[in-house]
């Protein structure tokens, strides 16, 4: 490299860096406009300078990038951890709600008056402790022998119109699925007891009457009796009137 070439290069670099006075700068500009080789050299220097500048920018962003990843990742993990717990909790809760909802929906759509009746009904068993002086009545014997039609016949023939006879009429009618008859007989038990101030088989009649109302879908009537028994801890059937039974009847009523 001769001295003139070196001087030219230095001038070009000075021009690139804005280090020339006006006269020198204009002289270089003039040369660049006519000397293509010089112009190529200058362009090459510009490209080199731009490479350095771009590299510097890459390095600066890379440096900040590292700082920011540390700054962002750490808190993000802290935030994410509870976030994950919350998400999982919500997911579990949602699953439970879904399961519970499905269960409730299943119960809602499969619930029927017959189902509720069947799950709460137990045929009344006549338990009689007698002394030698007391005879078993015909209606009692017929009921104990599960001759329900005979029970009905005795009742309807007016052969036993006692409170107990009315009650056995009701339970026999239930067995025979003669609901209207059963309601009529149980009602008579309640009326007669009320009229005479007695309570012969009164609580039993209330219970079986409420079940009969469920069976006939007379839910308002059923609920009056069920609530009465539920609210009376001394009632013979209090423990059988569960919250579940009350909810089921209310659901049936809403449907």
């Amino acid at each position, binding site marked *: 490299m001769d001295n003139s070439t070196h001087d030219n*290069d*230095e001038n070009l*670099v000075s021009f690139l860096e804005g280090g020339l006075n006006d006269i020198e700068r204009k002289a270089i500009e003039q040369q660049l406009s006519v000397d293509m080789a010089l112009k190529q050299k200058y362009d*090459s*220097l510009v*490209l*080199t*300078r*731009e*490479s*350095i*500048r*771009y*590299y*510097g*920018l*890459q*390095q*600066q*962003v*890379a*440096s*900040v*990038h590292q*700082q*920011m*990843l540390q700054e*962002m990742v750490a808190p993000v993990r802290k935030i994410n951890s509870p976030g994950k717990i919350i998400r999982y909790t919500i997911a579990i809760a949602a699953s439970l709600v879904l399961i519970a909802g499905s269960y409730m929906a299943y119960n809602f759509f499969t619930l029927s008056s017959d189902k509720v009746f069947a799950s709460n009904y137990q045929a009344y068993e006549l338990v009689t402790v007698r002394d030698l002086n007391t005879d078993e009545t015909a209606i009692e014997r017929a009921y104990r022998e599960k001759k329900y039609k005979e029970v009905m016949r005795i009742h309807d023939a007016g052969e036993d119109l006692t409170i107990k006879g009315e009650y056995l009429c009701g339970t026999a009618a239930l067995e025979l699925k003669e609901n209207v008859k059963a309601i009529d007989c149980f009602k008579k038990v309640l009326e007669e007891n009320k009229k005479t101030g007695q309570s012969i088989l009164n609580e039993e009649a209330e219970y079986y009457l409420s079940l009969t109302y469920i069976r006939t879908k007379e839910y308002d009537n059923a609920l009056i009796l069920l609530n009465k028994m539920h609210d009376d801890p001394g009632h013979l059937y209090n423990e059988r009137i569960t919250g579940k039974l009350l909810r089921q009847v209310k659901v049936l009523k809403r449907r």
Partner: protein
Amino acid sequence: MEVIRNFPDSELVANLRSGQRMDETIKAIYRSHFDSLSWFVINNSGSRQDAEDIFQEVVVSFIDLVQKDKFRGESTVKTFLFSLNRYTWLNELKRRGRALAREEKYERGQDKVELDTTHLIADREGKAEVARLVGELGETCRKILLLFYYENLSMKEILDTTDYESEQVVRNKKYKCLKQLEQMVNENPALKQTLKNLLHG
């Protein structure tokens, strides 16, 4: 303690253009846009690492474009960054040969409504070439050239950071380093063309 603040677009662009408060401004870009832009990459076949790398490149490209006055505020910084991010990532997916039909469909679907920045962004290879090229310089040369051409320090300021005896010695060293780098560029025409595409668009 560092004060964390966000900049309005106008202030952010002004800082980048002038080179003032660069670190603080770049951090503001990360805080405001990293999550949403990385989400795009991660939800389009990318990993967390991909998202970080692409975002870093996008920030470099964005600052470079601002400093070359190619971002004129016709869209918000957010929109512009999103467009750069999207293009850079989809281009990378194609490069990797696994541009899925889903992305292609997405790309086609978005063309009409997205800001078109495709002509503004060089390939990743070009950017990597710059890093490789300057990285091949000796450490001293790299430091002097960066301090002078990127940090815009004076010869006296550079002298204070080196063991050289005088400003003239630093000036001579800087000249030699520049010529060395220029020679490296000129020795490889393909590289030179790549740099031209990247730096002069």
